[in-house]
Protein backbone atom coordinates (compact mmCIF):
# COMPACT_ATOMS: atom_id res chain seq x y z
CA UNK A 1 0.00 0.00 0.00
CA UNK A 2 2.83 2.35 0.82
CA UNK A 3 4.11 1.85 -2.63
CA UNK A 4 0.89 3.12 -4.15
CA UNK A 5 1.12 6.23 -2.05
CA UNK A 6 4.80 6.96 -2.63
CA UNK A 7 4.19 7.06 -6.32
CA UNK A 8 1.73 9.91 -6.08
CA UNK A 9 3.31 13.26 -6.77
CA UNK A 10 2.97 15.95 -4.14
CA UNK A 11 0.62 18.42 -5.88
CA UNK A 12 -1.59 15.53 -6.89
CA UNK A 13 -1.77 14.27 -3.38
CA UNK A 14 -2.72 17.71 -2.16
CA UNK A 15 -5.43 17.94 -4.80
CA UNK A 16 -6.65 14.49 -3.79
CA UNK A 17 -6.79 15.49 -0.16
CA UNK A 18 -8.64 18.70 -0.84
CA UNK A 19 -11.21 16.86 -2.94
CA UNK A 20 -11.55 14.17 -0.27
CA UNK A 21 -12.36 16.83 2.30
CA UNK A 22 -14.82 18.60 -0.01
CA UNK A 23 -16.57 15.35 -0.83
CA UNK A 24 -16.70 14.47 2.86
CA UNK A 25 -18.36 17.82 3.55
CA UNK A 26 -20.88 17.27 0.74
CA UNK A 27 -21.70 13.75 1.95
CA UNK A 28 -22.13 14.93 5.52
CA UNK A 29 -24.17 17.99 4.55
CA UNK A 30 -27.64 16.37 4.59
CA UNK A 31 -27.02 15.11 8.12
CA UNK A 32 -25.68 18.49 9.19
CA UNK A 33 -28.73 20.19 7.76
CA UNK A 34 -31.01 17.73 9.53
CA UNK A 35 -29.47 18.43 12.94
CA UNK A 36 -29.31 22.17 12.29
CA UNK A 37 -32.97 22.36 11.28
CA UNK A 38 -33.96 20.31 14.30
CA UNK A 39 -32.47 22.99 16.53
CA UNK A 40 -33.76 25.99 14.60
CA UNK A 41 -36.79 27.93 15.77
CA UNK A 42 -39.75 27.64 13.38
CA UNK A 43 -39.22 31.14 12.00
CA UNK A 44 -35.74 30.33 10.73
CA UNK A 45 -36.71 27.08 9.06
CA UNK A 46 -39.38 28.89 7.11
CA UNK A 47 -37.28 31.90 6.23
CA UNK A 48 -36.56 32.82 2.62
CA UNK A 49 -32.82 32.84 3.17
CA UNK A 50 -31.68 29.70 4.91
CA UNK A 51 -28.42 30.16 6.81
CA UNK A 52 -25.89 27.40 7.42
CA UNK A 53 -26.04 28.17 11.15
CA UNK A 54 -28.68 29.20 13.63
CA UNK A 55 -28.98 32.44 15.59
CA UNK A 56 -31.04 31.08 18.44
CA UNK A 57 -30.94 27.34 18.91
CA UNK A 58 -34.20 26.04 20.29
CA UNK A 59 -35.44 22.76 21.62
CA UNK A 60 -39.04 23.42 20.56
CA UNK A 61 -39.03 20.80 17.84
CA UNK A 62 -37.65 18.15 20.20
CA UNK A 63 -40.29 19.12 22.77
CA UNK A 64 -42.97 18.60 20.14
CA UNK A 65 -41.51 15.23 19.25
CA UNK A 66 -41.19 13.95 22.79
CA UNK A 67 -44.48 15.56 23.76
CA UNK A 68 -46.15 13.44 21.15
CA UNK A 69 -47.97 10.55 22.76
CA UNK A 70 -45.86 7.51 23.45
CA UNK A 71 -42.82 8.65 21.48
CA UNK A 72 -40.59 7.13 24.16
CA UNK A 73 -42.54 3.93 23.85
CA UNK A 74 -41.98 3.83 20.08
CA UNK A 75 -38.30 4.42 20.64
CA UNK A 76 -38.08 1.57 23.14
CA UNK A 77 -40.04 -0.71 20.78
CA UNK A 78 -37.61 0.05 17.97
CA UNK A 79 -34.68 -0.79 20.25
CA UNK A 80 -36.32 -4.05 21.37
CA UNK A 81 -37.10 -5.10 17.79
CA UNK A 82 -33.66 -4.26 16.39
CA UNK A 83 -31.78 -5.62 19.40
CA UNK A 84 -33.60 -8.95 19.28
CA UNK A 85 -33.17 -9.25 15.52
CA UNK A 86 -29.42 -8.55 15.79
CA UNK A 87 -28.79 -10.97 18.65
CA UNK A 88 -30.91 -13.85 17.38
CA UNK A 89 -29.83 -13.63 13.76
CA UNK A 90 -26.16 -13.36 14.77
CA UNK A 91 -26.30 -16.66 16.67
CA UNK A 92 -28.32 -18.47 14.01
CA UNK A 93 -26.14 -17.13 11.20
CA UNK A 94 -22.96 -18.07 13.07
CA UNK A 95 -24.10 -21.69 13.38
CA UNK A 96 -25.20 -21.86 9.76
CA UNK A 97 -22.03 -20.21 8.45
CA UNK A 98 -19.95 -22.67 10.47
CA UNK A 99 -21.87 -25.56 8.97
CA UNK A 100 -21.42 -24.46 5.36
CA UNK A 101 -17.73 -23.56 5.69
CA UNK A 102 -16.27 -26.20 7.99
CA UNK A 103 -18.11 -29.28 6.86
CA UNK A 104 -18.36 -30.94 3.52
CA UNK A 105 -21.73 -32.56 3.07
CA UNK A 106 -24.28 -33.23 0.38
CA UNK A 107 -26.29 -30.20 -0.73
CA UNK A 108 -23.74 -27.80 0.76
CA UNK A 109 -23.35 -25.86 -2.49
CA UNK A 110 -27.07 -26.03 -3.13
CA UNK A 111 -27.71 -24.48 0.27
CA UNK A 112 -25.21 -21.70 -0.38
CA UNK A 113 -26.90 -20.88 -3.65
CA UNK A 114 -30.24 -20.88 -1.89
CA UNK A 115 -28.96 -18.38 0.64
CA UNK A 116 -27.88 -16.12 -2.19
CA UNK A 117 -31.18 -16.55 -4.00
CA UNK A 118 -33.08 -15.87 -0.77
CA UNK A 119 -31.62 -12.37 -0.74
CA UNK A 120 -33.42 -11.56 -3.95
CA UNK A 121 -36.89 -12.05 -2.49
CA UNK A 122 -38.72 -8.72 -2.67
CA UNK A 123 -39.69 -8.15 0.94
CA UNK A 124 -42.41 -5.67 0.07
CA UNK A 125 -44.26 -8.27 -1.96
CA UNK A 126 -44.06 -10.72 0.95
CA UNK A 127 -45.98 -8.26 3.10
CA UNK A 128 -49.17 -9.78 1.68
CA UNK A 129 -48.62 -13.44 2.68
CA UNK A 130 -46.83 -12.44 5.88
CA UNK A 131 -49.85 -10.43 6.90
CA UNK A 132 -52.05 -13.52 6.66
CA UNK A 133 -49.42 -15.65 8.38
CA UNK A 134 -49.16 -13.23 11.30
CA UNK A 135 -52.91 -12.93 11.51
CA UNK A 136 -53.37 -16.71 11.66
CA UNK A 137 -50.60 -17.01 14.25
CA UNK A 138 -52.25 -14.31 16.34
CA UNK A 139 -49.14 -12.15 16.06
CA UNK A 140 -50.68 -9.03 14.56
CA UNK A 141 -50.15 -5.95 16.72
CA UNK A 142 -47.23 -7.52 18.53
CA UNK A 143 -43.54 -6.77 18.31
CA UNK A 144 -43.11 -10.40 17.30
CA UNK A 145 -44.72 -9.66 13.93
CA UNK A 146 -41.85 -7.22 13.29
CA UNK A 147 -39.07 -9.29 14.83
CA UNK A 148 -39.71 -12.65 13.19
CA UNK A 149 -39.74 -11.56 9.53
CA UNK A 150 -36.66 -9.39 10.00
CA UNK A 151 -34.71 -12.29 11.46
CA UNK A 152 -35.59 -14.28 8.37
CA UNK A 153 -34.69 -11.45 5.97
CA UNK A 154 -31.33 -10.66 7.54
CA UNK A 155 -30.20 -14.28 7.78
CA UNK A 156 -29.25 -15.07 4.17
CA UNK A 157 -27.00 -12.02 3.84
CA UNK A 158 -25.52 -12.56 7.31
CA UNK A 159 -24.65 -16.19 6.52
CA UNK A 160 -23.22 -15.17 3.15
CA UNK A 161 -21.01 -12.52 4.79
CA UNK A 162 -19.93 -14.60 7.77
CA UNK A 163 -18.58 -17.37 5.59
CA UNK A 164 -15.33 -15.52 4.98
CA UNK A 165 -14.74 -14.95 8.68
CA UNK A 166 -15.31 -18.55 9.68
CA UNK A 167 -13.12 -19.70 6.82
CA UNK A 168 -10.30 -17.43 7.97
CA UNK A 169 -9.94 -19.27 11.30
CA UNK A 170 -7.09 -21.76 10.80
CA UNK A 171 -8.03 -25.40 11.01
CA UNK A 172 -4.88 -26.13 12.97
CA UNK A 173 -6.51 -24.28 15.83
CA UNK A 174 -9.37 -26.69 15.74
CA UNK A 175 -7.08 -29.68 15.79
CA UNK A 176 -5.16 -28.26 18.73
CA UNK A 177 -8.40 -27.69 20.61
CA UNK A 178 -9.45 -31.31 20.15
CA UNK A 179 -6.01 -32.59 21.13
CA UNK A 180 -6.43 -30.59 24.33
CA UNK A 181 -9.66 -32.47 24.89
CA UNK A 182 -12.18 -29.77 23.97
CA UNK A 183 -15.56 -30.97 22.80
CA UNK A 184 -17.02 -29.74 19.56
CA UNK A 185 -19.50 -27.53 21.38
CA UNK A 186 -16.77 -26.07 23.54
CA UNK A 187 -14.67 -25.30 20.48
CA UNK A 188 -17.64 -23.72 18.76
CA UNK A 189 -18.61 -21.30 21.53
CA UNK A 190 -15.38 -20.69 23.41
CA UNK A 191 -12.88 -20.53 20.56
CA UNK A 192 -14.59 -20.05 17.21
CA UNK A 193 -17.29 -17.64 18.35
CA UNK A 194 -14.90 -15.06 19.92
CA UNK A 195 -12.63 -15.28 16.87
CA UNK A 196 -15.49 -14.68 14.46
CA UNK A 197 -16.96 -11.93 16.63
CA UNK A 198 -15.57 -9.02 14.52
CA UNK A 199 -17.33 -10.53 11.55
CA UNK A 200 -20.53 -10.85 13.52
CA UNK A 201 -20.29 -7.18 14.36
CA UNK A 202 -19.95 -6.27 10.68
CA UNK A 203 -22.94 -8.36 9.67
CA UNK A 204 -24.95 -7.09 12.63
CA UNK A 205 -24.76 -3.62 11.16
CA UNK A 206 -26.86 -4.81 8.25
CA UNK A 207 -29.46 -6.61 10.33
CA UNK A 208 -29.67 -3.66 12.71
CA UNK A 209 -30.29 -1.22 9.89
CA UNK A 210 -32.89 -3.35 8.16
CA UNK A 211 -34.85 -3.79 11.40
CA UNK A 212 -34.42 -0.20 12.57
CA UNK A 213 -35.46 1.13 9.15
CA UNK A 214 -38.53 -0.93 8.70
CA UNK A 215 -41.64 1.08 8.28
CA UNK A 216 -43.55 -1.15 5.93
CA UNK A 217 -44.17 -3.98 8.39
CA UNK A 218 -44.83 -1.56 11.21
CA UNK A 219 -47.35 0.12 8.96
CA UNK A 220 -48.98 -3.11 7.81
CA UNK A 221 -48.86 -5.40 10.87
CA UNK A 222 -49.39 -2.96 13.74
CA UNK A 223 -52.85 -1.78 12.92
CA UNK A 224 -54.96 -1.37 16.00
CA UNK A 225 -52.57 -1.35 18.96
CA UNK A 226 -50.34 1.64 18.34
CA UNK A 227 -48.49 1.13 21.61
CA UNK A 228 -46.67 -1.64 19.74
CA UNK A 229 -45.51 0.63 16.94
CA UNK A 230 -42.00 1.77 16.11
CA UNK A 231 -40.14 5.00 15.39
CA UNK A 232 -40.74 5.33 11.63
CA UNK A 233 -44.45 5.55 12.35
CA UNK A 234 -43.83 8.31 14.89
CA UNK A 235 -41.81 10.18 12.28
CA UNK A 236 -44.63 10.04 9.78
CA UNK A 237 -46.91 11.79 12.26
CA UNK A 238 -44.96 14.98 11.58
CA UNK A 239 -44.52 14.38 7.89
CA UNK A 240 -47.70 15.22 6.06
CA UNK A 241 -47.01 15.81 2.39
CA UNK A 242 -49.28 18.84 2.24
CA UNK A 243 -47.99 20.79 5.20
CA UNK A 244 -45.08 19.02 6.82
CA UNK A 245 -43.81 20.24 10.16
CA UNK A 246 -40.18 20.28 8.98
CA UNK A 247 -38.84 21.16 12.41
CA UNK A 248 -40.64 18.19 13.94
CA UNK A 249 -39.68 15.87 11.07
CA UNK A 250 -36.01 16.85 11.35
CA UNK A 251 -36.00 16.52 15.14
CA UNK A 252 -37.65 13.10 14.96
CA UNK A 253 -35.23 12.11 12.17
CA UNK A 254 -32.31 13.22 14.33
CA UNK A 255 -33.55 11.17 17.28
CA UNK A 256 -34.04 8.20 15.00
CA UNK A 257 -30.63 8.48 13.35
CA UNK A 258 -28.54 8.94 16.49
CA UNK A 259 -28.72 5.35 17.82
CA UNK A 260 -27.61 4.02 14.44
CA UNK A 261 -24.80 6.58 14.25
CA UNK A 262 -23.62 5.62 17.74
CA UNK A 263 -23.72 1.96 16.77
CA UNK A 264 -21.71 2.68 13.61
CA UNK A 265 -19.09 4.73 15.39
CA UNK A 266 -18.70 1.97 17.98
CA UNK A 267 -18.18 -0.74 15.37
CA UNK A 268 -16.45 1.45 12.78
CA UNK A 269 -13.04 -0.21 12.92
CA UNK A 270 -14.44 -3.70 12.92
CA UNK A 271 -16.77 -2.85 10.08
CA UNK A 272 -13.99 -1.66 7.81
CA UNK A 273 -11.61 -4.51 8.59
CA UNK A 274 -14.56 -6.88 8.68
CA UNK A 275 -15.78 -6.15 5.17
CA UNK A 276 -12.28 -6.78 3.87
CA UNK A 277 -12.23 -10.11 5.67
CA UNK A 278 -15.67 -11.10 4.52
CA UNK A 279 -14.96 -10.94 0.84
CA UNK A 280 -11.43 -12.22 0.58
CA UNK A 281 -11.23 -15.95 0.53
Amino acid sequence: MNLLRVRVQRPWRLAAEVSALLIAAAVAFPLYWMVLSAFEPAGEIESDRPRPWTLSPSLDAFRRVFGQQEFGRYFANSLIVSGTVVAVSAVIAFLAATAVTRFRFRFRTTLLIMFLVAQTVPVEALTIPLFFLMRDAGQLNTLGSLILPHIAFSLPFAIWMLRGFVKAVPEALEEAAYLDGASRGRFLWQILFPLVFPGLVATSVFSFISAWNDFLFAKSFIISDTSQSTLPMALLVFYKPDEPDWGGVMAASTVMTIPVLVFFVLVQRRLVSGLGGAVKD
Partner: protein
Amino acid sequence: MPRPRGGAADVTAPRPLERGVGWTPWLYLAPALVVLGGLLVYPVYQLGLISLFRYTQAQVSGGEPAAFRGAGNYADLFSDSQFWQVLLATVVFAGACVVSTLVVGCALAVLLTRVRAVPRLALMLAALGAWATPAVTGSTVWLFLFDPDFGPVNRVLGLGDHSWTYGRYSAFFLVLLEVVWCSFPFVMVTVYAGIRAVPSEVLEAAALDGASQWRIWRSVLAPMLRPILTVVTIQSVIWDFKVFTQIYVITNGGGIAGQNLVLNVYAYQQAFASSQYGLGSAIGVVMLLILLAVTLVYLRLLRRQGEEL
Protein backbone atom coordinates in the same frame (compact mmCIF):
# COMPACT_ATOMS: atom_id res chain seq x y z
CA MET B 1 -24.31 -29.44 -7.85
CA PRO B 2 -20.82 -30.41 -8.98
CA ARG B 3 -18.00 -28.83 -7.09
CA PRO B 4 -15.89 -26.30 -8.95
CA ARG B 5 -12.90 -27.84 -10.61
CA GLY B 6 -9.30 -27.05 -9.83
CA GLY B 7 -7.85 -24.68 -7.27
CA ALA B 8 -6.44 -25.36 -3.85
CA ALA B 9 -9.91 -25.28 -2.37
CA ASP B 10 -10.71 -28.55 -4.02
CA VAL B 11 -8.20 -30.50 -1.98
CA THR B 12 -10.27 -32.50 0.45
CA ALA B 13 -7.76 -33.27 3.15
CA PRO B 14 -9.33 -34.67 6.27
CA ARG B 15 -10.67 -31.72 8.21
CA PRO B 16 -10.78 -31.67 11.99
CA LEU B 17 -14.47 -31.01 12.41
CA GLU B 18 -15.27 -33.78 10.00
CA ARG B 19 -14.60 -36.57 12.43
CA GLY B 20 -17.96 -38.26 12.69
CA VAL B 21 -19.77 -35.54 10.78
CA GLY B 22 -23.09 -37.28 10.27
CA TRP B 23 -25.91 -34.97 11.17
CA THR B 24 -23.81 -32.28 12.82
CA PRO B 25 -23.90 -29.73 9.96
CA TRP B 26 -27.65 -30.15 9.73
CA LEU B 27 -27.93 -29.61 13.46
CA TYR B 28 -26.07 -26.32 13.06
CA LEU B 29 -28.23 -25.40 10.10
CA ALA B 30 -31.51 -26.35 11.71
CA PRO B 31 -32.40 -22.99 13.30
CA ALA B 32 -31.61 -21.10 10.09
CA LEU B 33 -33.58 -23.54 7.97
CA VAL B 34 -36.58 -23.48 10.29
CA VAL B 35 -36.71 -19.66 10.32
CA LEU B 36 -36.12 -19.35 6.58
CA GLY B 37 -38.58 -22.10 5.79
CA GLY B 38 -41.35 -20.63 7.90
CA LEU B 39 -40.87 -16.96 7.22
CA LEU B 40 -39.39 -16.82 3.75
CA VAL B 41 -39.98 -19.97 1.73
CA TYR B 42 -43.54 -20.54 2.93
CA PRO B 43 -44.58 -16.90 2.35
CA VAL B 44 -43.04 -17.05 -1.13
CA TYR B 45 -45.14 -20.15 -1.80
CA GLN B 46 -48.20 -18.32 -0.47
CA LEU B 47 -47.37 -15.34 -2.66
CA GLY B 48 -47.38 -17.58 -5.71
CA LEU B 49 -50.64 -19.14 -4.61
CA ILE B 50 -52.42 -15.84 -3.94
CA SER B 51 -51.32 -14.58 -7.34
CA LEU B 52 -53.56 -17.26 -8.88
CA PHE B 53 -56.70 -16.14 -7.04
CA ARG B 54 -59.11 -13.28 -7.05
CA TYR B 55 -58.19 -11.90 -3.68
CA THR B 56 -59.64 -8.58 -2.60
CA GLN B 57 -60.97 -7.02 0.60
CA ALA B 58 -64.00 -9.32 0.58
CA GLN B 59 -61.81 -12.42 0.60
CA VAL B 60 -59.43 -11.04 3.19
CA SER B 61 -62.21 -10.40 5.67
CA GLY B 62 -63.65 -13.82 4.94
CA GLY B 63 -66.84 -12.48 3.41
CA GLU B 64 -66.35 -14.33 0.15
CA PRO B 65 -64.31 -17.39 -0.70
CA ALA B 66 -61.24 -16.79 -2.84
CA ALA B 67 -61.98 -17.58 -6.48
CA PHE B 68 -59.36 -19.40 -8.50
CA ARG B 69 -58.39 -17.39 -11.57
CA GLY B 70 -55.45 -19.37 -12.86
CA ALA B 71 -53.25 -17.05 -14.87
CA GLY B 72 -55.96 -14.40 -14.88
CA ASN B 73 -54.05 -11.90 -12.74
CA TYR B 74 -51.01 -12.29 -14.96
CA ALA B 75 -53.10 -11.84 -18.10
CA ASP B 76 -54.55 -8.63 -16.63
CA LEU B 77 -51.09 -7.47 -15.73
CA PHE B 78 -49.46 -8.14 -19.08
CA SER B 79 -52.26 -6.48 -20.99
CA ASP B 80 -51.97 -3.35 -18.85
CA SER B 81 -49.76 -0.74 -20.46
CA GLN B 82 -48.97 0.76 -17.06
CA PHE B 83 -47.29 -2.47 -16.00
CA TRP B 84 -44.89 -2.36 -18.95
CA GLN B 85 -44.15 1.27 -18.31
CA VAL B 86 -43.42 0.56 -14.63
CA LEU B 87 -41.26 -2.43 -15.57
CA LEU B 88 -39.20 -0.30 -17.95
CA ALA B 89 -38.88 2.46 -15.36
CA THR B 90 -37.74 -0.09 -12.75
CA VAL B 91 -35.03 -1.53 -14.95
CA VAL B 92 -33.72 1.85 -16.10
CA PHE B 93 -33.88 3.38 -12.64
CA ALA B 94 -32.25 0.40 -10.88
CA GLY B 95 -29.59 0.24 -13.60
CA ALA B 96 -28.78 3.93 -13.20
CA CYS B 97 -28.58 3.50 -9.41
CA VAL B 98 -26.27 0.49 -9.66
CA VAL B 99 -23.91 2.13 -12.16
CA SER B 100 -23.75 5.44 -10.26
CA THR B 101 -23.26 3.71 -6.92
CA LEU B 102 -20.45 1.53 -8.24
CA VAL B 103 -18.66 4.36 -10.05
CA VAL B 104 -18.85 6.72 -7.07
CA GLY B 105 -17.99 3.99 -4.56
CA CYS B 106 -14.97 2.67 -6.46
CA ALA B 107 -13.64 6.11 -7.34
CA LEU B 108 -13.79 7.20 -3.71
CA ALA B 109 -12.22 3.93 -2.53
CA VAL B 110 -9.24 4.64 -4.78
CA LEU B 111 -9.19 8.23 -3.56
CA LEU B 112 -9.04 6.93 0.03
CA THR B 113 -5.82 5.05 -0.75
CA ARG B 114 -4.21 8.24 -2.05
CA VAL B 115 -4.69 10.53 0.94
CA ARG B 116 -3.27 10.78 4.43
CA ALA B 117 -5.06 9.88 7.65
CA VAL B 118 -7.08 13.04 8.33
CA PRO B 119 -8.89 13.44 4.99
CA ARG B 120 -9.34 9.69 4.92
CA LEU B 121 -10.98 9.65 8.33
CA ALA B 122 -13.18 12.61 7.38
CA LEU B 123 -14.45 10.92 4.23
CA MET B 124 -14.85 7.60 6.00
CA LEU B 125 -16.88 9.12 8.84
CA ALA B 126 -19.08 11.12 6.47
CA ALA B 127 -19.75 7.98 4.44
CA LEU B 128 -20.52 5.94 7.55
CA GLY B 129 -22.95 8.68 8.59
CA ALA B 130 -24.78 8.49 5.26
CA TRP B 131 -24.78 4.72 5.46
CA ALA B 132 -26.11 4.68 9.01
CA THR B 133 -28.98 7.01 8.21
CA PRO B 134 -32.23 5.03 8.19
CA ALA B 135 -33.96 5.05 4.81
CA VAL B 136 -37.02 6.82 6.18
CA THR B 137 -35.10 9.67 7.77
CA GLY B 138 -32.67 9.92 4.84
CA SER B 139 -35.66 10.33 2.55
CA THR B 140 -37.30 13.04 4.63
CA VAL B 141 -33.99 14.90 4.89
CA TRP B 142 -33.40 14.85 1.12
CA LEU B 143 -36.97 15.89 0.55
CA PHE B 144 -36.38 18.80 2.87
CA LEU B 145 -33.11 19.78 1.16
CA PHE B 146 -34.95 20.00 -2.17
CA ASP B 147 -38.16 21.44 -0.77
CA PRO B 148 -39.50 24.18 -3.09
CA ASP B 149 -40.37 26.50 -0.21
CA PHE B 150 -37.85 25.94 2.55
CA GLY B 151 -35.06 23.83 1.05
CA PRO B 152 -31.54 25.24 0.76
CA VAL B 153 -30.84 23.71 -2.67
CA ASN B 154 -33.28 25.86 -4.61
CA ARG B 155 -32.02 28.99 -2.81
CA VAL B 156 -28.40 28.27 -3.60
CA LEU B 157 -29.14 27.33 -7.21
CA GLY B 158 -31.55 30.24 -7.58
CA LEU B 159 -34.36 28.01 -8.76
CA GLY B 160 -37.14 29.86 -6.96
CA ASP B 161 -39.94 27.52 -5.98
CA HIS B 162 -39.15 24.87 -8.57
CA SER B 163 -40.63 21.56 -7.41
CA TRP B 164 -38.30 18.60 -7.88
CA THR B 165 -40.97 16.03 -7.16
CA TYR B 166 -43.42 17.42 -9.71
CA GLY B 167 -41.60 16.34 -12.87
CA ARG B 168 -41.17 12.65 -13.56
CA TYR B 169 -37.46 12.75 -14.35
CA SER B 170 -36.46 15.25 -11.71
CA ALA B 171 -38.31 13.19 -9.08
CA PHE B 172 -36.52 10.03 -10.19
CA PHE B 173 -33.27 11.98 -10.20
CA LEU B 174 -33.85 13.13 -6.62
CA VAL B 175 -34.49 9.56 -5.48
CA LEU B 176 -31.39 8.42 -7.38
CA LEU B 177 -29.27 11.02 -5.58
CA GLU B 178 -30.49 9.77 -2.23
CA VAL B 179 -30.05 6.11 -3.13
CA VAL B 180 -26.48 6.73 -4.28
CA TRP B 181 -25.82 8.82 -1.17
CA CYS B 182 -26.84 6.05 1.21
CA SER B 183 -25.46 3.10 -0.75
CA PHE B 184 -22.08 4.21 -2.14
CA PRO B 185 -20.51 3.86 1.36
CA PHE B 186 -20.97 0.07 1.30
CA VAL B 187 -19.14 -0.11 -2.04
CA MET B 188 -16.46 2.38 -0.98
CA VAL B 189 -15.69 0.75 2.37
CA THR B 190 -15.72 -2.78 0.94
CA VAL B 191 -13.53 -1.99 -2.05
CA TYR B 192 -11.17 0.07 0.11
CA ALA B 193 -10.85 -2.79 2.59
CA GLY B 194 -10.20 -5.07 -0.37
CA ILE B 195 -7.43 -2.88 -1.76
CA ARG B 196 -5.83 -2.70 1.66
CA ALA B 197 -5.96 -6.46 1.99
CA VAL B 198 -3.72 -6.85 -1.09
CA PRO B 199 -0.30 -7.66 0.39
CA SER B 200 2.18 -4.87 -0.31
CA GLU B 201 4.89 -7.43 -1.17
CA VAL B 202 2.91 -8.42 -4.21
CA LEU B 203 2.77 -4.83 -5.40
CA GLU B 204 6.42 -4.24 -4.63
CA ALA B 205 7.43 -7.35 -6.49
CA ALA B 206 5.44 -6.22 -9.51
CA ALA B 207 7.05 -2.78 -9.37
CA LEU B 208 10.52 -4.29 -9.08
CA ASP B 209 9.78 -6.33 -12.17
CA GLY B 210 9.27 -3.03 -13.94
CA ALA B 211 5.49 -3.11 -14.24
CA SER B 212 3.84 0.23 -14.90
CA GLN B 213 1.13 1.62 -12.60
CA TRP B 214 -1.53 0.73 -15.15
CA ARG B 215 -0.10 -2.73 -15.60
CA ILE B 216 -0.07 -3.29 -11.83
CA TRP B 217 -3.71 -2.26 -11.69
CA ARG B 218 -4.76 -4.42 -14.59
CA SER B 219 -2.73 -7.56 -13.91
CA VAL B 220 -2.35 -7.57 -10.13
CA LEU B 221 -5.00 -5.51 -8.38
CA ALA B 222 -7.96 -6.09 -10.67
CA PRO B 223 -7.86 -9.90 -10.50
CA MET B 224 -7.43 -9.77 -6.72
CA LEU B 225 -10.31 -7.35 -6.38
CA ARG B 226 -12.61 -9.20 -8.73
CA PRO B 227 -14.37 -11.28 -6.06
CA ILE B 228 -15.05 -8.09 -4.11
CA LEU B 229 -16.29 -6.25 -7.16
CA THR B 230 -18.67 -9.08 -8.02
CA VAL B 231 -20.01 -9.12 -4.47
CA VAL B 232 -20.68 -5.38 -4.37
CA THR B 233 -22.19 -5.46 -7.86
CA ILE B 234 -24.64 -8.22 -7.14
CA GLN B 235 -25.58 -6.70 -3.79
CA SER B 236 -26.19 -3.36 -5.48
CA VAL B 237 -28.37 -4.99 -8.11
CA ILE B 238 -30.38 -6.84 -5.48
CA TRP B 239 -30.82 -3.76 -3.30
CA ASP B 240 -31.45 -1.17 -5.98
CA PHE B 241 -34.02 -3.31 -7.75
CA LYS B 242 -35.95 -3.41 -4.50
CA VAL B 243 -35.74 0.26 -3.52
CA PHE B 244 -38.96 1.01 -1.74
CA THR B 245 -38.81 3.44 1.16
CA GLN B 246 -36.94 6.17 -0.71
CA ILE B 247 -39.40 6.20 -3.60
CA TYR B 248 -42.37 5.80 -1.32
CA VAL B 249 -41.46 8.73 0.91
CA ILE B 250 -39.87 11.12 -1.60
CA THR B 251 -42.51 10.77 -4.31
CA ASN B 252 -45.30 10.24 -1.80
CA GLY B 253 -46.21 6.72 -2.83
CA GLY B 254 -45.14 6.71 -6.47
CA GLY B 255 -45.36 10.24 -7.77
CA ILE B 256 -48.13 12.21 -9.43
CA ALA B 257 -50.44 9.78 -11.26
CA GLY B 258 -47.97 6.99 -10.56
CA GLN B 259 -45.27 8.51 -12.75
CA ASN B 260 -42.53 7.39 -10.34
CA LEU B 261 -43.71 3.87 -9.66
CA VAL B 262 -41.25 0.99 -9.62
CA LEU B 263 -42.38 -2.64 -9.41
CA ASN B 264 -41.96 -2.86 -5.67
CA VAL B 265 -44.08 0.18 -4.90
CA TYR B 266 -46.54 -0.77 -7.64
CA ALA B 267 -47.08 -4.21 -6.06
CA TYR B 268 -47.56 -2.65 -2.65
CA GLN B 269 -50.00 -0.04 -3.95
CA GLN B 270 -52.05 -2.62 -5.85
CA ALA B 271 -52.25 -4.85 -2.79
CA PHE B 272 -52.72 -2.46 0.07
CA ALA B 273 -54.08 0.74 -1.44
CA SER B 274 -56.38 -0.88 -4.02
CA SER B 275 -56.96 -4.12 -2.07
CA GLN B 276 -56.01 -6.12 -5.17
CA TYR B 277 -53.99 -8.68 -3.24
CA GLY B 278 -54.00 -11.21 -6.07
CA LEU B 279 -52.73 -8.70 -8.60
CA GLY B 280 -50.16 -7.32 -6.14
CA SER B 281 -48.89 -10.84 -5.54
CA ALA B 282 -48.59 -11.44 -9.28
CA ILE B 283 -46.39 -8.33 -9.57
CA GLY B 284 -44.31 -9.65 -6.65
CA VAL B 285 -43.85 -12.95 -8.44
CA VAL B 286 -42.75 -11.21 -11.66
CA MET B 287 -40.23 -9.20 -9.67
CA LEU B 288 -38.94 -12.26 -7.88
CA LEU B 289 -38.43 -14.02 -11.22
CA ILE B 290 -36.50 -11.07 -12.65
CA LEU B 291 -34.19 -10.91 -9.64
CA LEU B 292 -33.78 -14.66 -9.73
CA ALA B 293 -32.70 -14.48 -13.36
CA VAL B 294 -30.14 -11.77 -12.56
CA THR B 295 -28.77 -13.84 -9.67
CA LEU B 296 -28.48 -16.97 -11.79
CA VAL B 297 -26.60 -15.10 -14.52
CA TYR B 298 -24.26 -13.85 -11.79
CA LEU B 299 -23.74 -17.36 -10.45
CA ARG B 300 -22.89 -18.63 -13.92
CA LEU B 301 -20.32 -15.88 -14.27
CA LEU B 302 -18.83 -16.80 -10.89
CA ARG B 303 -18.55 -20.42 -11.92
CA ARG B 304 -16.98 -19.60 -15.23
CA GLN B 305 -14.37 -17.59 -13.35
CA GLY B 306 -13.73 -20.66 -11.23
CA GLU B 307 -14.73 -19.03 -7.97
CA GLU B 308 -15.33 -21.38 -5.13
CA LEU B 309 -18.66 -21.15 -3.40
